[in-house]
């Protein structure tokens, strides 16, 4: 038996023993996710237990070094863990921007002290992070941000406003882009700082979205304080960290594929609404054609996602490729949601009825419109492809 086989057997046994039954059912939505943090209320004992057990092994961040609380697994082992979790339908023990975003940045750009201080609480789900990037006047033009940080010796005083801060109202700490040199060219005067959200100068107001959800906040800083020791990388070099994280984010989003997984396949959903002809074809022939065309693109994109992942693993990927994936994947997901709505007809329009699961189809459809905006609009991705891959002149 190879080491990996042993690892698999051990992992399987451990999961079997430690994953609560309740945590082996598919999450029904965002409400079932475990986000951790100081303000988080566990939805059940099982959820708490599952987080604690996984965190103790460092498996909430399986590939992070054990020194920082991570699992210390190799890529191959991490894949085995993922497979074994999938086998029993185990839910992710922790959803965390700390793990997805800040961690990778700290591992690359942070000091030893920063890693030691911030990574372990992330792994344990004790501190929940949010991302302070976009501002009202700086969306696609992220580097145009205006939030100012003034140097006060051992700390900065921060004033300004962020927008699209995911779950800022529920986060404990923020990783934030601030302008430390207003006189430098716009990319050159930005720093990447960390600070506590529980302080008088910070206010987060949830934004109501067209889907009726409120994932995001407007976040206001009035003389908020960030310690100098929490400056990541050098002063005025925050754009390097931001660029790294943006690329990482795009990769993550593009890796998400078509989303909406687990639901009924489109053709079946459509048949429920419109019925079928004698020979089994969908009774609405134009909808059928649209679905058939979508299904081809969708299958092709799955192949592309596989190719993309394989190439990245092998270090062969074009660095602008995530832009292409992000563009194509999100546009496809929007299309999918349009077809779900068309297939669902008037039933799918219901917004809060029980049968509609509180308007799940309609809300997911509206939510999907954000896919091609967040993490860089489709237009920005097309600009990137055009410049960096096709090398078209500007």
């Amino acid at each position, binding site marked *: 038996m190879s080491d990996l086989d042993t690892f698999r057997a051990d992992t399987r046994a451990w999961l079997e023993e430690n994953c609560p039954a309740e945590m082996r059912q598919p999450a029904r939505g965002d409400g079932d996710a475990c986000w951790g943090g100081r303000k988080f209320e566990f939805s059940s004992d099982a959820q708490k237990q599952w987080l604690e057990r996984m965190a103790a092994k460092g498996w909430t961040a399986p590939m992070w070094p054990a020194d920082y609380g991570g699992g210390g697994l190799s890529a191959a082992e991490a894949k085995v863990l993922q497979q074994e979790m999938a086998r029993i339908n185990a839910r992710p023990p922790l959803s965390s921007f700390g793990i997805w975003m800040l961690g990778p940045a700290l591992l690359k750009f942070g000091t030893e002290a920063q890693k030691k201080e911030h990574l372990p609480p992330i792994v344990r789900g004790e501190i929940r992070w949010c991302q302070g990037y976009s501002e009202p006047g700086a969306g696609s033009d992220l580097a145009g941000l205006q939030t100012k940080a003034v140097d006060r010796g051992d700390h900065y005083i921060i004033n300004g406003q962020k927008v699209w801060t995911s779950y800022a109202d529920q986060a404990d700490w923020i990783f934030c882009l601030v302008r430390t040199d207003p006189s430098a060219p716009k990319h050159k005067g930005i720093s990447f700082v960390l600070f506590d959200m529980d302080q008088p100068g910070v206010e987060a107001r949830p934004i109501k979205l*067209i889907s009726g959800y409120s994932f995001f906040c407007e976040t206001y800083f009035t003389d908020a304080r960030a310690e100098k020791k929490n400056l990541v990388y050098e002063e005025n070099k925050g754009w390097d960290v931001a660029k790294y994280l943006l690329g990482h984010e795009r990769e993550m989003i593009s890796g998400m594929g078509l989303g909406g997984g687990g639901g009924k396949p489109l053709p079946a959903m459509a048949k429920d609404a419109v019925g079928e002809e004698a020979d089994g074809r969908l009774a609405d022939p134009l909808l059928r054609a649209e679905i058939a065309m979508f299904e081809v693109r969708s299958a092709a994109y799955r192949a592309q996602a596989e190719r993309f992942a394989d190439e990245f693993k092998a270090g062969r990927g074009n660095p602008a490729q995530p832009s292409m994936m992000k563009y194509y994947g999100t546009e496809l997901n929007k299309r999918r949601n349009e077809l779900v709505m068309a297939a669902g007809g*008037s039933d799918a329009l219901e917004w809060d009825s029980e049968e509609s699961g509180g308007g799940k189809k309609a809300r997911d459809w509206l939510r999907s419109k954000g896919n*091609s905006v967040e993490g860089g*609009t489709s237009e920005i991705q097309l600009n990137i492809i055009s410049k960096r891959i096709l090398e078209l002149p500007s």
Partner: protein
Amino acid sequence: MPLYLTEDQEMLRDSAEGFVREKAPVAHMRKLRDADDGTGYDPALWREFAEMGFTSILMSEDEGGLGLGHVEAGVVMEEIGKNLTPSPLLSTGIAAVAALKHGGAQHRDKWYPKIAAGEAVAAIAVDEGAKHDPAATAMTAARSGNGFKLSGRKTFVTHGHVADLLIVAARTGGSAGDADGITLFAVEKGAKGLKADPRRLADASIAARLEFDNVEVTADAVIGEVDGGWGPLNALLGAGRAAASAEMLGVGQGAADITVNYLKERKQFGVPIGSFQALQHRAAHLYAELEVARAAVLKAQQLLDEGSEKAHKAVHVAKAMTGWTTTLAVQEGVQMHAGVGMTDEYDIGLYMKRGRTLAELFGDANYHADRLAREAGY
């Protein structure tokens, strides 16, 4: 008749435009929605609509109406679309009034004055499944004494939970899929055995699911002939689809207008985003689609007013074309608004929601394009 608005029609448009913009702009819709209003429209506004003559636009002058046609009705519907105004005008003043033209005088004598006065609201109960398919009507109307007993379910009945009058398609003969054997009934509010279950939709409008459990109606309730409801039903649907197309066009035009304004105002990289050629070309393409859709809608309305046989086909074209065009308009609108387009604070998302509801109303673009193909024999 030239394919543009006459001077009289333009005057009506100017007056409807001013009236709706002042009385029922998007803020009006927001107010009803945020108050979680369960009625689905504002009765006071409905009476004002009546005072303007909008609710009696299709009634003849003899009947106390304006004696105008579908072009004029569409002019008002487009303004309603532009302002996302919740209003029972489409179901009441247009679809129901058109249906009742085909019935006995007893219906018109009873309902036209109330509708003209803004004292009654009507709803259209045709759909039974999630997708529009009137020939599939399965609800039964069994003969019982001199009258009928209606049993079955209807869905997507806008204003169905508050309507004084329901126009109901039911089957007195034939079987689901047949055009023959359908009969149209006028059913009154509070009929015994009728249950209405109102549902809030994505656009904050309210549509009811109706359950008919042996609802008794007299023979007088029949609109047109027994088993011969397909004719009046199609008059209703022709008028309703044309009006829905006009409202849809208003939604698309409204979305395009606010988006073009946003392109001029919003700055990124130090310049208005409307100066980016990629967005310019998309906005220009959308403009072209809207102009073509507008022509299709006007053509359908004119042919309906002429009583032309070609109206039927033109209505299919108008509903399909506005379906696609307005869907494009709201998609482009939300995407070009980017982040703020995702927020409830900006109006563009409301246009997207309204567009989706109207896309389904009386058949979506696929339905109408398919019908055209079948009727053309391919």
